[in-house]
């Protein structure tokens, strides 16, 4: 598994915390959604870096009050064809004003990465060897003309309301 962020593979300082395990004092643990809801009280007043892992189907409203508290939110793609995390990502960016790392985990494939970026993801846990190779070679398949506003920095093209080009 390799973490791709800001155009490069980087060391991952974060650890996925198993259900039931206490978080390390130094933080940098990504809590399972339900485990976080049980443990949140332990972090009142603490400023250690925390993360949460959100499975598709989770109700973001249940952690609404904590969202800005997290440094990492990992959204799960159980299969690449399960597109719920695309909507969850946009909700986190648009509705909840989340500005921390938004990490795609699960089945992350090169052809989905541009879509993920446009929905607000900025970090990708890659397990697929071919995807990793493509990213190492700087290849992210996609298009360079978009018909919708997105969560990414893009530049408007012409006078049409939502035409965009990569920023």
């Amino acid at each position, binding site marked *: 598994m390799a973490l791709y962020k800001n155009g490069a593979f980087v060391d991952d300082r974060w650890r996925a915390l198993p259900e039931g395990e206490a978080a390390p004092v130094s933080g940098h643990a990504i809590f399972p959604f339900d485990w976080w809801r049980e443990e949140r009280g332990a972090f009142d007043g603490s400023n250690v870096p925390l993360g949460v892992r959100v499975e598709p189907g989770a109700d973001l409203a249940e952690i609404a009050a904590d969202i800005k508290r997290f440094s990492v939110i990992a959204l799960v793609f159980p299969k*690449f*064809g*399960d*597109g*719920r995390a*695309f*909507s*969850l990502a*946009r909700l986190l960016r*648009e*509705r909840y004003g989340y500005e921390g790392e938004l990490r795609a985990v699960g089945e992350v*494939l090169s*052809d*989905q990465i*541009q*879509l*993920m970026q*446009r*929905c607000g993801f900025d970090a990708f846990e890659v397990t697929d060897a*071919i995807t990793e190779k493509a990213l190492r070679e700087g290849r992210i*398949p*996609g*298009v*360079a*003309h*978009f*018909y*919708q*506003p*997105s969560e990414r920095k893009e530049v408007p*093209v*012409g006078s*049409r*309301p*939502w*035409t965009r080009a990569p920023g």
Partner: protein
Amino acid sequence: MYRYDEFDAAFVADRVAQFSDQVRRRLAGELTEDQFRPHRLMNGVYLQLHAYMLRIAVPYGTLAPRQMRKLAFIAREFDKGYGHFTTRQNLQFNWPALKDVPAILGHLAEVEMHAIQTSGNCIRNVTADHFAGAAADEIEDPRPYAEILRQWSSIHPEFTFLPRKFKLALTGAPRDRAAIQTHDIGYHVTRNAKGETGFVVYAGGGQGRTPMVAHKIREFVPVEELVAYTQAIVRVYNLDGRRDNKYKARIKILVHEMGLEKFKAAVEAEFAAMKPDELKLPQAEVERIRAYFAPPKLPPKPARSEALEARKAADGKFASFVEHNVTAHKTAGHGVVTISLKAIGAIPGDATAEQMEAVADLAETYGHDEIRVSHEQNLVLPHVALDDLPTVYDALAKHGLATANIGLISDIICCPGLDYCALATARSIPVAQRISEHFGEGARAKEIGAMKIKISGCINACGHHHVGHIGILGLERKGVETYQVTLGGSGDETCSIGDITGPGFSEQDIVGAIDTIVDTYVANRRDVSEDFLTAYRRLGMAPFKKALYERDTGADI
């Protein structure tokens, strides 16, 4: 019609390059078939029984002659010389080789066409009334709005992996010719009390194995909120639609299981919480797009055409063509001409390269460069001067395109069925052909009057059998094809799902069963002005059931 600017052209070129690379990676083994499938589908490529099938988008069914010529060229060069117009106003080629697909997409791009999102679990080609911009009963041409939705939904990053396919349809006239209530979202153009344009919103319609008529979820969405409201609906669906069972994954099941009121509340809550202005549709953009759809400047003409009347008086076949295939135009002295792709005994929706070129010629010479594809699998010349009809008719007749049967019993919608389709459980084309031959286009067909027969070769209902006045569903029982019949379905503004008559009929008996249904209708109707659907809604199933299943029981007594 809409013309690409540099941005649109560059987008399609990007997409062709992207898909060519995906094909290359698939052939190199870098993508598994599982990983490749969604990309191939979202670019219109299906794996069928005998070969790949390429489905090309005809947005809201509008085609220019040069585009039709290109389709003819592709039919000749890469297929077997014909194409198949579908119930979603698209065109399918049944025999392309996968290696040729990138080249075909390149040819299409030259005439501002593509196959993007004609399949896959995404927002599909947006359809609209095939008489849009021409019909006398229209409030407003819905195509500018369809084009706006088409653009916005193209490679939408959030909505490319939905639970299942998602179909939008729009209509701009009180008479719904676009079957909007059988779509995931249907928009019906309306005006509010202040005279402002907006849309009545329907959601949750669909056919397939669980047919449902869409629910009205809002009385009025103003034009400026069209895209935002669409996003709200699709987002609720993307998050909450079922993904555990592909047969329960359409939005109709979500609406059904959530309950209408809860679903409406979820959409309204999402809509209310959206960033207020991001997707607000600027009036200037609506006007800019609308300009592309400006009606042609039709010369003023008297409502009555002497040339037309003279030919009608002299030629009964021509008179019949005018009666059945020509619809009132909003401009006096003009007509909307429907070209039947249902010649008696032919395969519904098929057109040869020569026929495509003949239609392109006519559109150029007599039709202000416009062609439409109808969801009923016919072609339309929307703007023809009545004075030109005799010439147009003669040219159509020369190419086997002058069958005078629009709206009659032989104007059958039919899916490709087991002759082509990997999903089919029975053949549908031969059944359509036999019914067509049985009733013909003569006196009997006229006596029967308005009748929509729709045939599907499997439960997925691509032939729209649920909303046929008479629907036929081909199934397989113990290795034998059997045909289930439904009555009283309708896809128009009075949308309803047909009722099953009872046990199915064998391939041999199905035409006889249709004959019995038709005879029962003719015998029981109030008079000739009461069409089949109206009569069925009055009479109910009983007389038809009796005629179909009890007719032989007297013999033994």
